[in-house]
C-alpha cells in the first residue's frame, strides 16, 4: 500500500486490531467474588465457547485516542454546514442531550410497574398529544424506530384498514416519481404493486395521470408535501378529493415537515396517515445514521389499528392501555426509541409554538435566499418560490464531464457538506439544497461563494473538479471494488492480505 503524504490531523490510520497488544487491559472489572467456582469445570464443556473472542486489547488512553482521532475524520453538524436536501441537518440542542442522560430517564427499565415510571409515561403522553396538534392528526403512536420503520407501520395500517373493510382487491400503492426511495420499497415490502405517477411541468404530481391511475384497486397515495423539489403540492385539496372519492387513503411522508411547523398541517390537508422523522424536524441527532424515531399519526377512523400498548391518562396518573380493537400488534420491542422521543419533546417545550413557527419561517426564507442567489450560477428547473428546500441542476456542465456528484465532492474541500445529489430522480443532475433555519446568513453566503468558485473551476479545470476532494482523510473510494469483493470485517481483511491482496 502506498505511503500516505503527510497529513498531520489524519496521520492515525490504523485499525483498532492493528493497535492491539497481548495482555493490555482497559476497564478495571470487579474481582470475582466466588473465585472457587470454576465455570470451565462446572459447565459442560460442549456448552462453552472454545476460545476467547478475538477482541483487541488496548489500554484506556489508547482507546480514547483511537476513537477521538476517528471522530476527527467526520463532518458533523457541530463542525460543518450540511445543505443536505430532505435530510434537515439542523443544530441538535445540547440541553436535549443533558436531559436524556438523567438517571431517571437513562436507567429506568421498560418493565417497571406503571407507578414507577410515571415520568417517562408523561413524556410519551404529552409528546404524542403535541405531535397531534402540530400535524392536525387525532392520534399518534411513538413505536417506530426510524422514518422507514414509520412508513412500514403506515402501510401496515393501510393494509389492515382495507382488509378490515373486506376490500382485499386494493393491491396498488401510488407514489410520485419524485418520491423518496423508501416509499416504493416499503410498499413493495408490504406486498403492494407500486404505480409511479409522473410529475407535471410545474414539478407537482400530474393530476390527470393521477386520475387515470387511481381506481378501486388503489390502497393509497404516498406523498411528501412540500415535495422533494421543495414545492408545495398546491392541488393538495383536489388530490385529497380524488383519493377519497375512490376509497383510497392519503399517506404523508413527513420527511419535509420542517417547512410547515405552525404554517399548515397535513391533517388539515386531508392526509389520513402521517409519519414524522424526529431526527429531522425535531432536532434529535442523526448519530451518523441512527438511532432515529418515526412516530406515526392517524385520523380517528384508523386509531383502532395502531400498535399497542399506548399511554392513557386517568386523572393525574398515566397507565398502559394494552389493547385496541383491531391493533396490528407491535412493530418494535417496548415503546419506541424513548431517548429520542424525550429529546424531541424537550425541543418542542424549549421553542414553544412561536418558536416552531419561526423555525419554519427561517428555514423557508433561507432556502429562497439561497435559491435566488444560486440561480445566477446554476440552473433552477422550477423557478418559483420554494419551501424549505429547492433543487438546482448541473446538466449544463455535462459536456465538460462534470456531474452533480462532482460539485458535491468539491464542496467538501470548501468545508461544506455535499447537498443531496442525483435526487430527486425527476431532475437530471440534481443538487437538492436544504439549508435549515440554524445556519447564519454568513454561512449561507459562504455556500454561495463556494459554488461560484466551483462553477469557475469547472470552466477552467474540469479534471480537477472531477477528482475532488483533495483535503479529506481519503480521496474517492473505489466503490466498485468494495462491492465486487466485499471486505466487511477485520477477519475478511486478514484473509485478503494472506491471499493476493486486492488492496495492495
Amino acid at each position: 500500500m502506498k505511503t500516505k503524504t503527510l497529513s498531520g490531523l489524519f496521520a492515525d490510520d490504523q485499525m483498532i486490531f492493528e493497535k492491539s497488544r497481548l495482555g493490555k487491559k482497559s476497564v478495571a472489572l470487579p474481582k470475582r467474588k466466588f473465585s472457587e467456582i470454576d465455570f470451565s469445570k462446572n459447565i459442560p464443556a460442549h456448552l462453552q465457547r472454545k476460545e476467547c473472542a478475538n477482541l483487541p486489547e488496548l489500554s484506556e488512553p489508547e482507546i480514547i485516542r483511537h476513537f477521538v482521532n476517528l471522530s476527527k475524520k467526520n463532518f458533523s453538524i457541530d463542525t460543518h454546514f450540511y445543505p443536505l436536501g430532505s435530510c434537515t441537518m439542523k443544530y441538535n440542542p445540547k440541553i436535549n442531550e443533558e436531559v436524556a442522560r438523567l438517571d431517571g430517564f437513562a436507567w429506568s427499565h421498560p418493565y417497571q410497574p406503571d407507578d414507577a415510571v410515571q415520568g417517562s409515561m408523561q413524556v410519551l403522553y404529552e409528546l404524542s398529544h403535541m405531535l397531534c396538534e402540530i400535524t392536525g392528526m387525532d392520534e399518534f403512536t411513538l413505536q417506530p424506530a426510524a422514518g422507514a420503520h414509520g412508513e412500514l407501520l403506515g402501510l401496515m395500517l393501510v393494509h389492515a384498514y382495507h382488509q378490515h373493510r373486506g376490500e382485499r382487491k386494493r393491491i396498488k400503492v401510488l407514489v410520485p416519481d419524485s418520491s423518496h426511495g423508501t416509499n416504493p420499497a416499503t410498499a413493495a415490502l408490504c406486498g403492494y404493486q407500486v404505480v409511479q405517477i409522473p410529475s407535471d411541468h410545474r414539478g407537482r404530481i400530474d393530476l390527470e395521470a393521477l386520475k387515470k391511475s387511481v381506481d378501486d384497486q388503489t390502497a393509497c397515495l404516498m406523498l411528501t408535501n412540500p415535495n422533494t423539489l421543495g414545492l408545495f403540492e398546491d392541488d393538495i385539496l383536489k388530490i385529497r378529493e380524488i383519493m377519497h372519492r375512490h376509497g383510497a387513503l392519503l399517506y404523508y411522508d413527513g420527511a419535509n415537515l420542517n417547512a410547515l411547523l405552525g404554517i399548515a398541517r397535513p391533517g388539515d390537508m386531508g392526509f389520513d396517515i402521517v409519519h414524522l422523522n424526529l431526527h429531522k424536524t425535531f432536532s434529535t441527532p442523526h448519530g451518523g445514521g441512527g438511532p432515529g424515531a418515526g412516530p406515526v399519526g392517524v385520523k380517528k377512523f384508523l386509531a383502532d389499528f395502531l400498535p399497542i400498548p399506548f399511554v392513557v391518562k386517568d386523572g393525574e396518573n398515566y397507565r398502559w392501555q394494552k389493547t385496541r380493537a383491531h391493533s396490528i400488534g407491535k412493530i418494535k420491542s417496548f415503546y419506541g426509541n424513548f431517548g429520542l422521543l424525550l429529546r424531541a419533546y424537550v425541543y418542542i417545550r424549549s421553542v414553544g409554538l412561536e418558536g416552531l413557527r419561526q423555525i419554519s419561517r427561517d428555514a423557508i426564507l433561507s432556502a429562497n435566499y439561497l435559491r435566488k442567489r444560486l440561480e445566477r450560477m446554476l440552473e433552477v428547473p422550477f423557478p418559483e418560490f420554494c419551501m424549505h428546500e429547492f433543487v438546482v441542476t448541473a446538466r449544463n456542465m455535462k459536456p465538460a464531464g462534470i456531474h452533480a456528484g462532482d460539485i458535491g465532492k468539491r464542496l467538501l474541500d470548501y468545508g461544506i457538506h455535499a447537498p443531496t445529489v442525483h435526487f430527486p430522480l425527476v431532475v437530471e443532475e440534481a443538487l437538492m439544497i436544504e439549508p435549515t433555519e440554524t445556519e447564519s446568513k454568513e454561512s449561507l453566503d459562504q455556500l454561495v461563494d463556494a459554488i461560484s468558485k466551483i462553477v469557475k473551476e469547472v470552466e477552467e479545470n474540469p479534471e480537477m473538479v472531477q477528482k475532488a476532494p483533495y483535503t479529506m482523510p481519503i480521496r474517492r473510494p473505489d466503490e466498485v471494488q468494495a462491492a465486487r469483493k466485499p471486505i466487511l470485517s477485520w477477519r475478511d481483511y486478514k484473509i485478503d492480505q494472506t491471499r493476493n491482496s486486492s488492496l495492495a
Partner: protein
Amino acid sequence: MSYLPLTSEDHQVMLDTIGVEQFNQILQAIPAELRNPDIRIPNSLSEHEIRTLFGKIARKNLNCKDKLSFLGAGAYEHYIPSVVNAIISRSEFYTAYTPYQAEASQGTLQAIFEYQSLMCELTGMDISNGSHYDGSTALAEAALLSLSKTSRKKVMVAKSLHPEFRRVLQTYLAKTGMEMIEIPFLTDGSLDRAALENHLTQEVASVIVSSPNFFGLIEDLEGLAQLVHQNESLFIMTGNPLSFGFYKTPAEWGADIACGEGQPLGIPLSFGGPWLGYFTTTRTLVRQIPGRLVGLTKDMDNRRAFCLTLQAREQHIRRERANSNICTNQALCAIAACVYMTCLGKTGMKQVAELNMENAFYLRDQIEKIAGFQVLTKGPVFNEFTVRCPKPVSEMNQFLIARDIVGGYDLGKEYPEFKNTMLVCATETKTKDEIDHFVEILKESISS
C-alpha cells in the same frame, strides 16, 4: 430562541434579495384555507426552566441507579465504562449524517467497520451488518430473509423466545400471509426437541431458537443445526451477546443467522430504546443481508478507505425492488457497542460473562434454600433464572418496592403455566451484600 442565528436585519436583506416585501408572499402556493392553523402548544421555556421541569419529571421514575434492581427480561443493567459515553458524546460522531459521503465520514465508517468486525469475533459468524433498529426487528428481518431465500411459507419459533420478539415477528409476518409455528418448551424451560422435529416439514423456512432463552436457560442445541439443515431450512439463533463471552457461540452451534438485542453491550436502558439490533450471518447470505454494510476498499491514491457497500440491495438504489426498506442503522449505538467491546477486550469479555454467571448462580443457590421458593431453571444460566414464589409475583414486587428493591419479571403475565413465577436477574453490577440483602428480604416476604 437561541437556535436561530438570523437577525431581523438579515430577514430584511434576504427578503429584498428574494424580491418580496412580506414573508407571507413566499407561501402563495399554500391554499389560504390551510394557513395559520390553530395549534395549542405551550409557550417556550428558558433552558433553566427546562432543566428544572425535566429534572422533576425524571424524578417521577424509579431507576436502577437509585434502587436495587433484579429486573432483566431482555433489558439489562450493566456497568458501562466512562470511555463509552465520552466517545459517543463527541459531536463529530453524534451530530454526523449517514455516511453517504465516504470522504467526509471516515470516522463513522471505520467505527462501524470495527463494530462489524467485533460482532463477527463475538458471535463467531462471518458477516455482521452495521446494526438494526433493535433485537425484535432484527429477528423479524431474519425471518423474512429465510422466507425469501427458501421460498417457503412457515417459520418455527421457540415459545421460549422473548415475548416482545415473537409479537413483533407476528406483526411482520401478518402482512405477508406467512405462518408462525411455536415450538413448546419442557417443564424446565428448555426447548421441546421432539415437538420441533415433529413439525419440521418441507414448508419450514427457518427454525428460530434463543440461548440463553427468555427464562435465562442456556439451551443444549447439539445436533439441531444438522437437523435443520437436512430439512434445507435456515437455523436462526438469538441470545444475549454478552453470554457469548463464555458460552458457545451461534457459529459453533451452526447458526446461519445470529441476531438479537445488543443493548447489554454498553447501552443504557432508556426505558426500552434506543438500543441495538445485531445481525450476523454466514458468508453465503452476504448478498441477502438487510441493512447497512461498511466495506474496506482503496481510494484513488491506493490508501485504505471505508465506504458503504453492496448498496445495490438498498431502497435508494432499487426502490420497489430493494430487499428491505431500511435506510438507517443504529450507528451511534453500534459505535457505543464497538467501544464497549474494545474496552473489555479479549479476556475482559469472558471475565464480565463470568461475573454475571457467578452472581446469578450464587443468588439461585441462596433462593433455592428459602423454604417456599422453588427454582425452576436448574440448568446452566447466564444472568437470570425462574423461581416459583409462595405468592403472586405482583404481591411480591409490591413488598419489595416498599423496601427499595425492584423485583423480577412476572412470567405468569405471558405464560399461564408459569403462575406465581418470577424471572430474576443478577448482572455483574450486584455486590454480594446486595444479593444477600435481597435474599433476606425475600425471606421476610414469606412471614409478612
